[in-house]
């Protein structure tokens, strides 16, 4: 079940040289975003343990390369929409970590004034159209966003993230069908982390080895990508987006990835549905280590640079917690606000 081969010493096999056209700053930016998501979520888990954060908290740790790789291949005005495991996508789209943390704390200063929480981060200013908590239910919304782009004759594209668990859903297939039929510019990104909650992918669907086949059945072109390799993810997305802006067509990406944490904080470790050994093996495929190794190999940065970066990111996260903690809860009057546009 391993995603990628690991050599005998347990280190990642990093064979490919970096693209010579890659800009050093771009690579470091990709790493920094992945690191921000990682540190932010590690801190969220701590805050959950301290009961500063409640409700459902679905961590993205292990999957960072997918959100960061895809979102760094689009323009700021392109739409992104995600499922309930949405912290990574929101941060990758550029949302202020302070406001995101405040939202998790349920504070009035949060992205959604504390009314959305972990599963419903929404940042319209950054065209992050939200996290949605009904499995598969946001795929038709993504198609609608793409429809609006075409209706207004814009060249905006939509990235729609979901897990393997959403693939068998009816919403998903209705969305695929409409997007294909009407040639709408949406990239469906299936983050195959191999578990729909606690159910392994082979118990979710018969055709699980090539999930993209589902999209191809609707006439949607697709590719599989190593979802632990942020550069491969970015390269593929950039290639697809470039074509899509001129010639709108939906596309399906299956990114093989793995979540290192449980489905939610209710099964924070490996859970009873997978072994410690399996999680341990997967952790050797860490997308952060993968990119770091590449950067080090090519001499674009050294250990001291990474240490410095980590220090800065931890500082950012610490400040976000301070901001969230010191922010007020919403006033009681906010209860009835924002139900309807008056």
């Amino acid at each position, binding site marked *: 079940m391993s995603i990628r081969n690991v050599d005998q010493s347990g280190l990642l096999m990093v064979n490919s040289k970096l693209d010579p056209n890659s800009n050093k700053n771009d690579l470091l930016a990709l790493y920094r975003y992945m690191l921000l998501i990682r540190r932010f979520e590690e801190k969220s888990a701590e805050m959950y343990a301290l009961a500063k954060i409640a409700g459902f908290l679905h961590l993205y740790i292990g999957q960072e390369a997918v959100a960061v790789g895809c979102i760094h291949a689009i323009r700021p005005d392109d739409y992104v929409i995600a499922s309930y495991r949405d912290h990574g996508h929101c941060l990758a789209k550029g949302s202020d970590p302070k406001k995101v943390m405040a939202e998790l704390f349920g504070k009035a200063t949060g*992205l*959604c004034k504390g009314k959305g929480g972990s599963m419903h981060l929404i940042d*319209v200013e950054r065209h992050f159209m939200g996290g949605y908590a009904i499995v598969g239910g946001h*795929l*038709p919304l993504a*198609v*609608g966003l793409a429809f609006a782009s075409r209706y207004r004759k814009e060249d905006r594209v939509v990235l729609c993230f979901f897990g393997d668990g959403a693939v068998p859903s009816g919403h998903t297939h209705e969305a695929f069908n409409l997007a294909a039929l009407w040639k709408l510019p949406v990239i469906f990104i299936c983050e195959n982390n191999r578990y729909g909650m606690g159910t392994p992918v082979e118990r979710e669907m018969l055709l699980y080895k090539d999930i993209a086949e589902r999209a191809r059945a609707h006439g949607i072109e697709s590719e599989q990508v190593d979802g632990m390799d942020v550069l491969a993810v970015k390269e593929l997305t950039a290639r697809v987006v470039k074509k899509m802006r001129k010639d709108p067509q939906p596309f399906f990406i299956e990114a093989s990835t793995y979540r290192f944490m449980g489905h939610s904080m209710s099964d924070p470790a490996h859970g009873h549905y997978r072994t410690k050994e399996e999680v341990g093996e997967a952790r050797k495929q860490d997308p952060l280590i993968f990119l770091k190794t590449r950067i080090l190999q090519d001499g674009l940065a050294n250990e001291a640079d990474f240490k410095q970066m980590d220090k800065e990111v931890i500082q950012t996260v610490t400040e976000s917690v301070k901001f969230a903690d010191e922010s007020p809860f919403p006033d009681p009057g906010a209860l009835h606000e924002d139900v309807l*546009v008056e």
Partner: protein
Amino acid sequence: MLISYREALNQAMREEMQRDSRVFLIGEEVGYYQGAFKVSKGFVEEFGVERVLDTPITEAGFTGLAVGAAMAGLRPIVELMTFNFGILALDQIVNNAAKVRYMSGGQLSAPMVIRGPGSAAHQLAAQHSQSLEAWFCHVPGLKVIAPATPSDAKGLLKSAIRDENPVIFIEAQLLYGTKGEVPDHDYSLPIGKAAVTRTGSDVTIVAYSKMALLALEAAEALSKEGINAEVIDLRTLKPLDTDTLLESVKKTGRVVIVEEGWEFCGLGAQIAETIYSKGFDLLDGPIVRVAGEEVPMPYTRPLEDLAIPDAARVISAVKKNL
């Protein structure tokens, strides 16, 4: 001008699509077929297939698409071939359209109209004859409208299209062919305002949609027996026009509520509760409810007739109340 309910809806949508390029119509058979009930007659010719979109038979998919488009700034009108099929789109309506504004702390909203025929026609049996308006009224974040006449249908549909919120607009299937006077000029009617369609002093009959016409019929018959009923056509079910209800009860002291939907947890329960809690002292006796029978709609005509309220039942309810 004397036109049908169907033509009134057609005019409302046409005028709004002419006025606002963000408005588009989407649904099964709305384009080339001109709507299963011919409400969108002539639309493809006038607005083209980019704005009049025939969909596959996938209510969740195309309703969800419309919600996404509304979130991105367009103004979709979703035609459900019947509200019975709206059940398939319920997740999109309830979880996304109705909630996105609240969940986003006011950043987003889904300004759209979801419209189509509801309630029973003749012998369509259990899966095509349901009055589900109470389901939608139950959900915060939705407005619900159910007009009874062509002029109300036109004026309220125009307001619904212009509204910044998701609006459920239920047309009674049997009303499409009914005719009424509709003003020639551009007009809209306020959402949330009931109409007193007949004034009276002995009893208030509260109804909406097809049942509002039935209530009038019953009131006319009662007048021949010297009973003077006031009839309120709610027109908008949510928000409910409590003021008009209480004004009437102040005058009559007695209330009969008529709905085609099932009685248990039906809209009538809500209306009665509203009157009891806000106007108990105005009442001279208990409120009486007339509602659809607690059964899936039977196909056979004699049983179907028994399942749906008729004038005789309204009349006897009024007499029981007096």
